[in-house]
Structure formats: structure tokens, C-alpha cells
């Protein structure tokens, strides 16, 4: 009964032996062989080491979110390839959003002109939406809006920046996100390097956005970027903008074009504004409502790169607890974008 086993037989049974799945007799034969065979014992020890690594299972919540994230990570074109590009209830709204984004491309151009006119000195720049040449479309806009480039003292966005935007709560030793702020030039003027965007149709910066608590964040001078830093922007950067605690998917649908325009309007040049609108609009066309939360330009793999972070959720009523960070080399919206996704840190 207890015939000697050769090494190959032992090797085949080692995993079951380690997991206690062999019968008493089988286990005895393996144990007997191991007692006299150094090579098989070494093999067994290596296997034991592997099996010592703790294995975990995803929770139900993680599982549900994982499925939604994978779906969201597939490009719309890829979803079409694999057959998931079905019409969604958001399509109509997205079409509206994209139409609005095209219109807001004109607005952003005007906003940029107004920013330059205001000189960033006393925050008094006001542009009336009458007629202006735009850098983006080169056309003339007459859409009856006005822009106020003044952030009120009560603006909670400014308060947040003043308190904590210098460095995200990243793990010890983490690279800085290098959020730079230019010196403020006046008590009432905080239109610095980090700005909340300006244009938004008829809305002005003095009016509350959503529940009045937050606005999107444009960061100037993000410096050298890395894949990990982009994930940090999503995980730790978005809470600085307070999106997760504040907005729901319905808000995202309602406000996404407004926020996109604000980000575009805060960019340093008309070209960057255009790129934000163009690349951002492509993301808004995805099948889940997303809220543009943060935009910046930095260098990734030695390329000047546009980075935009979006908040979203797969839960019906939010809050927006997940991020997508997209990066476009050279701000080229036609280029294959980089992509990171995950949960926003709370």
C-alpha cells in the first residue's frame, strides 16, 4: 500500500497536501517521501510560502463598483466593439451637453479675453457677452451673459485653497502635487494660479454653484507628472475640491458643461481653453454622468500633457465617490489618452 512515490508524483500532490486535501494514506505517503527527499522538501517549502500569502475577497460594494469601473474604463468605441455601446438614458443629455460645450467654447474665448483685460490685479474684470472674437472658433458670440472675475470672500472654494491645497494628504514620502499659487495682489483678489474657472453661461462666479459649496479647480504649473501622481490627483486631490461629499449623478448631469467651461476659462491661454473643452467634451460623452472637477497642464513622460480629473459614481444617488483622471499628451484630444480610475479618498 505504501509504495514509494517518485518525485513527479509527489510534485503533483504537493498542493493538495499543503491544503490538507489528501486522504490520510495519501498524506502519509507524501510525508514519508518528503522526510527523505531534500529536493521535494524544498519544492514544498516554496509552495508553502506562496500559500502563506493572505488572500482576500472583494466586498459586495467593492465588487459592484469594480464592475462599474471596468465598464467605465472601456472607451465608448471599445464598448461598441464589444457590444456595450447601447443607447443610454444619458445620450440625450449628453447631446445637449456637447452642443452646449461647443457654444461654451465661444464663451471661454471671451472669458480669456476678459481675464487678460482684468489683468488679474483687482479682480474687477467684467466681460459682457455682446460680441467678441474668440480664439477657439474665431466667430462672434452674442449669447447675453456676463462674467465676473472676482471671487467673493465668502467663497468656500477660496477658503479651501487657503487652508489645505498646498499638499494633499498623501502617504509619507509622497511626491508633492506641486500646486502653485501666485502671490495675491489685493485683499479682494484671489484670482491666483489656482482658479475656479470663470465662464458658465449666464452664471457668474458670485452666484452659488450647485449647493454653493464647491467649484472646479484649475491648477497652474503642475510640474512633472507621473502615473502615480495622476492617481493621487484623483484619490487625494478631488477631496480638496469637496466634490465627493457634495454632488450626485443628477448634479453631474446638470452641471458638467458649466464646470467644464469654468475650467476652460481658467486656463492660461485660449489654446489650452480649447483643448480642455474639446478633450473634456469627449469624456462627457461617456455613458455615465461625470463632473469635471480639476484640470491642469504638466509634463508627463517629457510631454506637455493636459490632465483632467472627473468625479462620478455608479450608485444611483451618489455621492460622487470615484475618480477618472485622463491625460492627453500635448493636449491632443485625438491622441490615445492615459487613464486612471479609482475611489476618491475620504
Amino acid at each position, binding site marked *: 500500500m505504501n509504495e*514509494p512515490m*517518485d*518525485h*513527479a508524483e509527489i*510534485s*503533483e500532490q*504537493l*498542493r493538495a497536501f499543503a491544503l490538507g486535501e489528501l486522504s490520510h494514506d495519501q498524506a502519509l505517503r507524501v510525508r514519508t*517521501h518528503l*522526510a*527523505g*527527499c*531534500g*529536493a*521535494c*522538501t*524544498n*519544492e*514544498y*517549502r*516554496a*509552495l508553502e*510560502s*506562496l*500559500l*502563506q*500569502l*493572505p*488572500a*482576500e*475577497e*472583494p466586498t459586495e460594494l*467593492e*465588487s459592484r463598483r*469594480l*464592475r462599474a*469601473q*471596468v*465598464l467605465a*474604463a*472601456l472607451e465608448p468605441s*471599445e464598448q461598441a*466593439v*464589444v*457590444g*456595450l*455601446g*447601447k443607447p443610454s438614458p444619458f445620450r440625450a443629455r449628453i447631446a445637449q451637453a456637447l452642443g452646449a460645450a461647443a457654444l461654451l467654447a465661444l464663451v471661454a474665448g471671451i472669458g480669456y479675453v476678459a481675464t487678460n483685460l482684468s489683468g488679474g490685479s483687482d479682480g474687477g474684470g467684467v466681460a459682457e457677452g455682446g460680441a467678441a472674437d474668440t480664439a477657439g472658433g474665431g466667430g462672434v458670440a452674442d449669447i447675453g451673459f456676463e462674467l465676473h472675475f472676482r471671487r467673493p470672500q465668502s467663497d468656500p472654494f477660496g477658503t479651501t485653497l487657503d487652508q489645505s491645497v498646498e499638499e494633499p494628504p498623501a*502617504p*509619507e*514620502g*509622497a*511626491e508633492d502635487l506641486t500646486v502653485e499659487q501666485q502671490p495675491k495682489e489685493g485683499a479682494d483678489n484671489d484670482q491666483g494660479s489656482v482658479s475656479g474657472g470663470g465662464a458658465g453661461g449666464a452664471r457668474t462666479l458670485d452666484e452659488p454653484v450647485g449647493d454653493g459649496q464647491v467649484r472646479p479647480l484649475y491648477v497652474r504649473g503642475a510640474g512633472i507628472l*507621473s*502615473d*502615480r501622481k495622476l*492617481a493621487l490627483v484623483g484619490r487625494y486631490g478631488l477631496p480638496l475640491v469637496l466634490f465627493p461629499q457634495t454632488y450626485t449623478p443628477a448634479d453631474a448631469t446638470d452641471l458638467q458643461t458649466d464646470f467644464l467651461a469654468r475650467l476652460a476659462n481658467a486656463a492660461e491661454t485660449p489654446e489650452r481653453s480649447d483643448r480642455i473643452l474639446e478633450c473634456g467634451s469627449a469624456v462627457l460623452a461617456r455613458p455615465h454622468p461625470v463632473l469635471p472637477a480639476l484640470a491642469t497642464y504638466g509634463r508627463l513622460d517629457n510631454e506637455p500633457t493636459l490632465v483632467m480629473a472627473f468625479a462620478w459614481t455608479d450608485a444611483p444617488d451618489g455621492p460622487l465617490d470615484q475618480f477618472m483622471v485622463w491625460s492627453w499628451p500635448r493636449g491632443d484630444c485625438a491622441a490615445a489618452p492615459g487613464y486612471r*480610475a*479609482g*475611489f476618491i479618498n475620504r
Partner: protein
Amino acid sequence: MREASDRSDDLLLDDFLTGEQEAFDELMRRHEARIFALAFRMTGSRADALDATQDTFVAAFRQAHKFRKDAAFGTWLFRIGINACKDFLRKRNRHPWEGDEQLEHTAAPGDVERTASLRVDIVRALEALPEEYREAVCMHDLGGIPYEEIARLSGAPVGTIKSRISRGRRRLAELLELPAATTTSKDET
């Protein structure tokens, strides 16, 4: 049409490729636990395991139309998972400050350092194995995938797979610098 839960993986994959989202959900539901377990073992943190699991499924669904069905979908997926974890760790290792922040939630304080150290050693040792050894060892020992199934996916004879796993483990023992057992049996070759 049958419920998604009553369909085989292959049938679900076909339905997924023709646009049925329920098939996508069911495939993920069936396989995410095993991929997550692999990713957790390799990365040591829930957040990273979720990211690596996400990478695995995104890669798998992007390549789904290339799957030839000469092995089970789960086997094919697991191999993608091994590679996704390897790529994820390579990227993360450029930033070694990130990664183990959640270990404390999964082990008693005294076990944390030991577990983290063991994992780092094992992952490094696995990376040092020849690819065909690493893949076979991970699939069989971590994934519990039978020899025959690995052979089908790899297109190699079963005997070759057995040999790779045996040699891979022994090489792993050397790389881990486990105290060598010196006893030599009389039929050792």
C-alpha cells in the same frame, strides 16, 4: 433566453461580444473573486488589488474577441491577471512609498511586517523566475488551475507543465533563500 447565471462562460462571452451587458456582469461576478485574491496576494493592499483587478478585466474585455477557447475562460483570464499584477507592481515599484497602507486592516499588528516582508520577497522571487515557470507556478499554486488546463492554454504538453511547476518551485526556494533541505533520496536524479 436562459438566465445569465445558467449559461457557461463561453456562452456568456459570446453574448457579451454581441452586446449583452448582463453577460458582462455575470462574467465579472464569477471571476472577480479569484482575480482579486491573486491581486491581493501580489500587491498586499485592497486598493491596489482593486486597481489590478480592474486592469485585468479591462485588458480581458479588450482582448475578448481574440480568445480562442482552447482553454477555459477563467484560465485565460487568470493568465491575464498574472501579467496585469506584474505590470501593476512594476509601475508601483517606481514609487515604493505607496502600497502597504492597508495591510494593517488585514492582519494583526505583529503579522503586518512579517506578511509584508514575505510578500515582497515572494513577488521579487516570482519576478526573477523565467516567464514560463512563473506563469505555470502562479496558475497552479495560486490559482488552483489543473495541469491539463494550463497545458491547453499554453499549448505545451502536460508533462512539460508539470516539469515547469516543479522546477519553478525549486528555483523559487533558492531565490527565497529558504533553508535548504539536505536530505537526498536514493532515487533523486
